């Protein structure tokens, strides 16, 4: 009998543990800042979060890189404090009670294989390449080889930004639609005839970033707008709900002038 009681107690405890874990999942402790959204913003928001936690000992900062759309949805449903989007909010999203605050700007680099002789393209030629009007590199100042177009999947903030600036919405003849910055860079680095686009902050030596209309993508050219292929990094909050104390503090920190160093170190250009 005694054993039975012991086992019963064990069972009750197990249930209690599971229950407390469930409770822990949804609990928003004061002193926690939860952000959720764009994968392209990882470096920027990661650096900001880390700096913020160093300054405020008791605060826990979390970032869940799920994608712009998911982040916006998460704010709407109250699953996080601040949503992160690497595109501007659509009208229906603003109408549903969300506010966008531009945190930074990010250049979208147009990248080719390092062996590709082409070093500069204007926006018009890029558009012609992506819509399939030019299909051979020799018509764009390169060697005689078929152009391989690499881009991002539908719904990606990077694709959204690239296509809207080059005016190629729904018209791109992609050879590959990859699901991340890393995949695009890897694919371009493995194919001498490929062209792709990726967040400037992530571009590495394995690929060559083209100058666009003679302007190289750098922090300065993104800032003064002379490098035209860029998109905003946006903090999304609920219009009518107040942020928690910690979240508000983070929001203020991220949009303050103090944060611009961290943002530029992470490869983007601070808006403030």
């Amino acid at each position, binding site marked *: 009998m005694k054993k039975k009681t012991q086992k019963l107690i064990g069972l009750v405890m197990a249930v209690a543990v599971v229950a407390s874990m469930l409770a822990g999942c949804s609990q928003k402790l004061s002193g926690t800042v939860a952000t959720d959204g764009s994968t392209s913003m990882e470096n920027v928001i990661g650096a900001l979060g880390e700096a913020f936690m160093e300054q405020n000992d008791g605060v826990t900062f979390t970032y869940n890189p799920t994608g712009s759309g998911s982040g916006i949805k998460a704010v709407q449903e109250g699953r996080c404090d601040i949503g992160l989007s690497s595109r501007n909010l659509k009208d229906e999203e603003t109408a549903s009670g969300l506010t966008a605050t531009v945190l930074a700007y990010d250049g979208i680099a147009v990248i080719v294989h390092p062996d590709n002789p082409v070093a500069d393209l204007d926006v018009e030629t890029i558009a012609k390449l992506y819509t399939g009007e030019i299909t051979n590199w020799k018509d764009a100042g390169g060697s005689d080889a*078929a152009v391989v177009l690499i881009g991002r*999947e539908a719904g990606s903030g990077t694709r959204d930004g690239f296509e809207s600036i080059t005016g190629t919405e729904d018209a791109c003849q992609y*050879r*590959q*639609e*990859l699901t991340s910055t890393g*995949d695009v860079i890897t694919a371009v680095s493995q194919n001498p005839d490929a062209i792709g686009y990726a967040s400037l902050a992530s571009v590495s030596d394995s690929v060559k970033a083209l100058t666009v209309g003679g302007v190289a993508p750098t922090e300065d050219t993104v800032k003064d707008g002379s490098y035209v292929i860029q998109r905003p990094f946006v903090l999304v909050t609920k219009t009518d709900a107040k942020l928690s104390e910690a979240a508000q503090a983070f929001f203020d920190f991220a949009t303050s002038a103090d944060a611009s160093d961290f943002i530029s170190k992470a490869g983007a250009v601070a808006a403030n």
Partner: protein
Amino acid sequence: MGKHQRFIENLIHGIFLFLGLVTVGCVLLITVYLILSGIPAIRQIGLLDFLLGDTWESTAKEPSFGILPFILTSIYGTAGAILFGVPVGFFTAVYLAKLAPPKVKAVVESAVSLLAGIPSVVYGLVGMLVLVPGIRQLFHVPDGASLLAAIIVLAIMILPSIIKVSVTALEAVPQEYEDASLALGATPIETYFRVSAPAAKSGIAAAVVLGVGRAIGEAMAVMMVSGNVPNMPSLFQSVRFLTTAVASEMAYSSGLQRQALFSIALVLYLFVLLLNAALNFFLKRKKEG
């Protein structure tokens, strides 16, 4: 037996019954959730337009949601993987089950289970770095990310299940069958292929169905090597599978697009249920036969 004890016994019987039914509950839960979240988009798009439409432009201004390219790609890709993977797996299995010295067998078998244990992301990564450029150079195509690349990756990924299940089936063939064949003058090799293999055929069929299941359900690896563009399938074209259609757009999706992705998952689920019924059929035959 006291009343009290009988009560306890009944209670415990009830608890175990409940635990037994959890599995059934899970299947029902998954089915119900997938149907509930998959039906709305199909209703809105129309079943035929959804299943037989050949254009998928989920984020265009006038979106169209036709998943025929995905269905065909999944079927072709799986068939291709079976075409490559099953013969290789089968012959390896015969060797392991009948001919290999115990030490060789142990080494090869652990290599095979290691293959099974490699995370699919690693397959995708190595495929991207080695296979895709390789196909590009070997076949002189502009880009190597293609149905063929996906087929090769899938063929490798299904090898372990095919080999393991086939080996088990071949080892279960009664010794008397083989002895009789040998006594009649057949050589060992002839015996293994003409007597043992046919005797193990329902087990091997089960292995194939299992391989089909694994191939049709794989997402992360093929997403990285198949190019992921919703084209109609062709060997050197960039293609998108049912699984990769769901996996690639889910993170960013909203509205009807998101619902349509759940509908794709529902279609995939139905395929898997069908396969499972087939598997069950083969296994049952094995038990009876």
